[in-house]
């Protein structure tokens, strides 16, 4: 079902954990859908993401996209991090099954949520960042009837 890359990131997820006194923390998703992602960012004074950690409750794809997303934003500036879209995460993972695409959206959301938290704490506004929705809904295709 999953690509080798996904399986690799699921089995050996990078950057699992917490950051004490993180610059920004974002939690997205909900238990109803079975996916919750939390992203911790440590951002230095130049606006570079020095460190990133995550915790995820969710399926294999959710764990793997979280892991990949942390890798993609680590060492990046905030503006660069904003460009890490769900598409970029998916591509980096060699794709996801259609039914799991929403997980990659969640990873994008989680980064945005953590950046939003950072901006709020700092009292700044980040260009191009909107207040994240806390829920991700998906319209499942119903073919049957």
């Amino acid at each position, binding site marked *: 079902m999953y690509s080798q890359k996904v399986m690799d990131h699921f089995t050996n997820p990078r950057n699992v954990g917490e950051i004490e006194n993180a610059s920004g923390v974002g939690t997205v998703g909900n238990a109803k859908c079975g996916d919750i992602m939390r992203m911790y960012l440590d951002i230095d004074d130049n606006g570079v993401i020095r460190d990133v950690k995550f915790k995820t409750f*969710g399926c294999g794809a959710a764990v793997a996209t979280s892991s990949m997303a942390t890798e993609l934003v680590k060492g990046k500036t905030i503006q660069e991090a904003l460009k890490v879209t769900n598409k970029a995460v998916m591509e980096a993972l060699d794709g996801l099954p259609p039914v799991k695409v929403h997980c990659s959206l969640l990873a994008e959301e989680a980064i945005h949520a953590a950046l939003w938290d950072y901006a709020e704490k700092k009292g700044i506004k980040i260009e191009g960042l909107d207040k994240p929705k806390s829920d991700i809904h998906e319209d499942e295709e119903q073919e049957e009837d």
Partner: protein
Amino acid sequence: MEKKIYLDNAATTKTRPEVVEAMLPYFTELYGNPSSIYEFSAQVKRGIDEARAKVAKVIGAESSEIFFTGGGTEADNWALKAVAEVYASKGNHIITSKIEHHAILHTCEYLEKNGVEVTYIDVDENGIIKLDQLERAIRPTTILISVMFANNEIGTIQPIKEIGAIAKKHDILFHTDAVQAFGQVPIDVNEMNIDMLSASAHKLNGPKGIGCLYIRKGIKLRSFIHGGGQERKRRAGTENVPGIIGFGKAAEIALETMEERARKEIRLRDLLMKRILDEIPFVRVNGDKVRRLPNNVNVSFQFIEGESLLIMLDMNNICASSGSACTSGSLDPSHVLLAIGLPHEIAHGSLRLTVGHENTEEEINFTVDRIKEIVEKLRRMSPLYEDFMKKKQ
């Protein structure tokens, strides 16, 4: 372990070698169409008759009350749709439970779009149907009660005899989806007042793609599949002869070995359940402790999600399920676990392990060891666990 550990016998089972053996001649030697009149086909017909008798015996029915179908789902569809149509002049109301298999629930949804009214009865926290609610739901227009014999996810066995008595008292037809129970626990259609019953061979170490609907003698029921005169004009289509023979053989063996298998499976099941409960914190067992299929373990691990757990088990060559095999890939947590009152996040963390007669204690112990490690690993990366532990401190 190198070898695969198969703990998903509620999804499907390995076909017994003796069953395959029995089927084999019917592919390349006794391949005649049973509807033909030459002697070559008469042999095939005799084989079918014998298989039918073996299937009937499992539930105390007459041979002539067994109608072979392409599986359990077809049997369920047939029972519900045909009753809704044939008894339309009597009424348009069906009663079922909230924890039926999708073969029943989606058929009910289809019927609802076509003017049938369906009442879905609640179950208690162990998955047992609320009998008082069921009886109160009966209307003058009620034409059918359909309640599954045993649940495929949590293994709960329903009070079928009591439901049968209620149906009889009110002169309403009673159908039971016994796909999980057939050949696993004793069933007597007469004692239990069952009018129709669905079964599927691949759940009892028989082949896939063959099942049956038991229809009590005297019950009017139109065909679901129209065409040739097979199955005494009730189910058209050239008979799946090897499938029928395999179903017969599997039924025969299931009946003969029922007690012995149940004893063994209950031992493995209870070992599995006990070790999990004893050694892993924040776990709950789903389903009734006593009124339960011999082979079913269903547990929910707090703070983790089932698919991750399944994949990690798979990497250890352990086959398990997180709810019904049919619903995996879906995003919603199991309707059964929600119906017994689990909150969504707990429902998502559920694991179903269903043992078979070939499993060993060693396999069970190996599996529990792996589950422990995996649950720990997943909890370490769970934000829900993090929140919970922080709150506790």
